[in-house]
């Protein structure tokens, strides 16, 4: 894919090949979700307005449509450009309430205080929960997390940065609500990793 410069208007920078691009992005995300801790390359297929990154925008353009309310964190709503870009390219309604969101896009994870404000689903319908896309600067150079759970052979490690405050404790609480809970998608530079709610964080020395 040719490298496209960031769009000057909200009408540019969408998928040039919606069928192929969304399939490629989805398969990378599906593999990331099925094997938590593994990092999968994302093609450069979108050019959104800053501070939305190419990988986060490719993911939201792949997943969201008119059926899925999207919540944006304050860093993304400073100007209307990101909101308008997502609305134009996906048709998704933007919601102000975390608990209504099917997807959340977070440009500044370190400023996200609580994970439990998002929809966690119900015990009968745990799938009615928010998938939270965190834009991170790195998946390998942050503080290491050790992961266990379905999809992981033995243990896996991931070192995303930045992460929400007290992430380990918050994730523990999220895991305890299983099968309810949020799923986290980590959108790194040209790559993606995921932590579904089934993933357990363990102390590395244990």
């Amino acid at each position, binding site marked *: 894919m040719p490298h496209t410069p960031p769009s000057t208007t909200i009408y540019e920078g969408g998928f040039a090949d*919606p*069928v*192929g691009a*969304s*399939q*490629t992005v*989805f*398969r990378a*995300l*599906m*593999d990331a*979700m*099925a*094997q938590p801790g593994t990092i999968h390359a994302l093609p450069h297929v979108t050019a959104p307005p800053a501070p939305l990154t190419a990988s986060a925008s490719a993911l939201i353009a*792949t*997943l*969201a*449509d008119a*059926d*899925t309310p999207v919540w944006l964190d304050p860093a993304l709503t400073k100007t209307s450009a990101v909101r308008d870009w997502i609305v134009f390219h996906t048709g998704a309604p933007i919601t102000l309430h975390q608990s209504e969101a*099917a997807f959340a896009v977070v440009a500044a994870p370190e400023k996200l205080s609580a994970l439990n404000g998002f929809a966690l689903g*119900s*015990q*009968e*319908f*745990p*799938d009615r*929960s928010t*998938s939270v896309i965190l834009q991170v600067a790195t998946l390998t150079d942050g503080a290491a997390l050790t992961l266990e*759970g*379905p*999809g*992981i*052979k033995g243990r896996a490690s991931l070192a995303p940065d930045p992460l929400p405050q007290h992430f380990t404790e918050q994730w523990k609480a999220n895991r305890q609500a*299983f*099968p309810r809970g949020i*799923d986290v998608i980590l959108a790194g530079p040209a790559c993606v990793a995921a932590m*579904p*709610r*089934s993933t357990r964080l363990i102390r590395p020395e244990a």
Partner: protein
Amino acid sequence: MIAHAADAPAQNLASYNFAYLDEQTKRMIRRAILKGIAIPGYQVPFASREMPMPYGWGTGGVQVTAAIIGRDDVLKVIDQGADDTTNAVSIRAFFAKTAGVATTTTTPDATIIQTRHRIPETPLHAGQVLVYQVPIPEPLRFLEPRETETRKMHALEEYGLMHVKLYEDIARNGRIATTYAYPVKVEGRYVMDPSPTPKFDNPKMHMSEALQLFGAGREKRIYAIPPHTEVVSLDFEDHPFEIQHFDEPCALCGAEQVYLDEVVLDDKGGRMFVCSDTHHCESRRAEGHRGALLGDEPAFGDQPLTDKEPAL
């Protein structure tokens, strides 16, 4: 043995979207698949579409495959282990036509394997996706017909009824008589129907290298088992789970420890047992293994004929 699609849609004809489904439908199915992977064994409702084939012919599996397949994928489709029966041939042709993807009958070459009721004998490897066609996804449905109740039972992890059913099997028959669609517990939480695969295949689901996706078109449910996930067949301490055993090896390739189909040969009680997995059987024969009834060429020394076999 990878066949490249020859009949790509002609440019001057109106053609379907890649892999038949429209993009909005694919997004909806993809979201359901992601939730299914995040909650292993939980049945995610999805808005199943009308497909150009009747319910019961694999519409759920076809929709899952259509949502995940890409131009570089290599597709294998099996029906009871066979690559060459109606359901398998027509679904393979469907994707060769609507997606222009390469198809294969060779298990290790495939990136996506859609299956009706078998897991291939060749162990699957990492990166492969196994897509099951599921008729009735709810393991508790024949015990409790109300969806509101079964949903609550899953919510409360109340699976006593399933154990009662298995117990009644033992009380009536002296053993657990369930031989297919044998219920499993996924990652210690959800009881799941593995689709009507013979229970012989249940151990292959446990800690599989491949991602397993399940699609039920008529019942509008998608569920999943990620790789390296614990899948335990329900049983009792004094009646442990066991798989079927066969007295004879495959009559064509001599394979043991595989699932065999019974083939009636005449009206005098003559019958043979052959591999249900046609690719496995063919590749073994190509390697020189010969079963008792293969005929023609002289048998190889390492496969002595058994005297139990009826003479033909």
